[in-house]
């Protein structure tokens, strides 16, 4: 793949008018689909909760891809921060103060702080070593949630709390009463997060991350403090993934240690790869396919694990560039 192809796929410098047009069109389609989803999801055999799960998982996968696809750092432990967000919101509402927004805030802060500390320990590592350390660190929080029965509910999960109505002053949003309302609440959060990520990626900082991905040594020679950039990218990525985690817990009014186990991390990575790591919206497409497939297959067969396992293998062997990679290659011909 030549440098021009890379640039073309990434949507960085040198976009032709036609390509820019295509990116705009894709963004438009994505938002049109997301905004109307609750209204046609039922007609195609889905349900609103499934739509919410798609949006939340898309946020998680896109957050991971901020690091994986745009900084070129292989993290295989993002479920830890996802789960910390989930436990943060649940414990805040259950034990401290029943407020949805405050809970989200606490969840996100918890996840981000943990990422800041762990990121500081691992920012010098690269490649497979980085991946291995992130996998291993992910397990710490799993064991804490699993063992600390009295507070986290252990293996049974954290129950006995609900998402709370949000009082905006002029209107009161009862998130619990209507799934559709909660969908749009999640979508607003998604829009804020994704918008922020797009802005960061467009900023000089974001461009520097892409430069590090393309050629770390050259970036270093240019005087870029690579470790600092990777640390910050890791923290930003985990900030957004813990936001996704809080929403995930709010969706089911429940969270359990599985939300922060290694298989969840693997799911995020496969979503990003399946959709296309080099595309901004790719992970969203991957998440949609994954979540819908998971919902369907696990209702059809008990051997969900074999199915998902074979699915991983097939994606890696035959679709390493993901859906967006396929589409881009086709239109480039």
């Amino acid at each position, binding site marked *: 793949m030549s440098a021009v192809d890379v640039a073309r796929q990434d949507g960085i410098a040198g976009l032709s008018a036609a390509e820019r047009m295509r990116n705009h069109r894709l963004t438009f389609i994505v938002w049109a689909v997301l905004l109307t989803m609750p209204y046609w999801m039922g007609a195609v055999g889905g349900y609103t909760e499934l739509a919410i799960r798609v949006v939340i998982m898309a946020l998680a996968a896109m957050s991971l891809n901020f690091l*994986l696809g745009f900084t070129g750092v*292989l993290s*295989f432990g993002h479920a830890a921060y996802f789960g910390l967000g989930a436990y943060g919101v649940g414990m805040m509402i259950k034990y401290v103060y029943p407020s949805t927004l405050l809970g989200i805030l606490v969840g996100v802060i918890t996840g981000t702080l943990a990422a800041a500390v*762990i990121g500081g*320990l*691992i920012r*010098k*590592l*690269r*490649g*497979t*070593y980085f*991946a*291995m*350390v992130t*996998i*291993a*660190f992910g*397990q*710490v929080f799993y*064991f*804490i949630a699993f*063992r*600390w029965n009295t507070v986290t509910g252990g293996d049974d999960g954290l129950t006995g709390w609900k998402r709370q109505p949000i009082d905006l002053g002029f209107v009161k949003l009862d998130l619990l009463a209507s799934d559709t309302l909660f969908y749009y609440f999640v979508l607003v959060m998604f829009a804020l997060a994704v918008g922020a990520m797009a802005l960061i990626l467009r900023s000089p900082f974001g461009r520097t991350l892409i430069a590090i991905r393309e050629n770390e040594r050259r970036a270093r020679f240019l005087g870029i403090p690579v470790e600092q950039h990777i640390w910050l990218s890791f923290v930003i990525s985990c900030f957004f993934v813990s936001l996704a985690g809080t929403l995930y817990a709010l969706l089911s009014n429940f969270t359990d240690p599985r939300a922060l186990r*290694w*298989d969840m991390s*693997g799911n995020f*990575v*496969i979503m990003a*790869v399946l959709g296309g790591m080099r595309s901004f919206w790719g992970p969203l497409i991957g998440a949609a396919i994954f979540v819908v497939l998971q919902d369907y297959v696990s209702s059809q067969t008990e*051997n969900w*694990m*074999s199915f*998902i*396992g*074979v*699915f*991983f*293998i097939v*994606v*890696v*062997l035959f679709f*390493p560039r993901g859906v967006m990679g396929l589409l881009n290659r086709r239109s480039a011909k």
Partner: protein
Amino acid sequence: MTQLLLFNLFNGLIVGAFYALMALGLSLILNLSGVINFAHGGFLALGAYIAYTLMPLCGFWGALLIAPFLTSILGLITERILIRPLYGRDPLYSLLLTFGLAYVLEDVARYIWGAQSLPFQVPASLTTPLSSQFFFLTGYRIFMVALVAAAVMGLFFILNRTRLGIRIRAGTSDLETVSSLGVNVRVLRNLNFGLGIYLAGLAGVLAAGMLGLQPTIGTSLIMPSFVAIIVGGLGSLPGTLLGGLLIGVASGVTTVFFPSATEAVMYVMMGLVLLVRPRGLLGEEGRIQ
């Protein structure tokens, strides 16, 4: 108290020996081929189940001898078909693939042998306590430690004294040169993978005798093996061995004083090592990149 401490110390040593045996196999594959074999735990479980199936036919000793070999052959086939196409690509892909493979292997074990725990009989001659005061010193436990020690010595003998082993070590430091000297790198990687899986199979048979047999036996052992490699130092097999024993003993001792932190303590150790010495206790300089 002393006895309790000794008991857990010894227990930790045994568990650590498992971690080390598994981590050594992982390390071999990682060092030569750059593949994080997430399915290592799946192969471990497979080795244990194959031994379980063989036992009625050829007894415990026969199973102990044959099962790791059969597992290793499965490993050779897997490497040839699934993993070989991924060399030279981003390590992300081999990690994802073996991740999926781990799912498949666990589900296959559950499908064939059932989800419930199976009894794994070890010979009566090995289960009797050797001393009434130190009841935990059963023959099987001593035997396990001895066997792990023998396996590790065997591995280091292969790596230092045989042609294959020397090539593996040479390939680990510079695969390109080894290839241009006329060594078939594909075969080398294949055999190396098989060697790693052999160790997983052996660990599986031994672990089944101690922990019982269930489809998730592999997944519970693989995470500590990662920690063992990181603590010991990437690229160093003696480091991996040391790392495995250390975290095993550490979690054994922690069980006495603070049982709920049994697992957490090894991750704390990992954090400390990364903080003070990012390349691991015996890791070579420059390998962390």
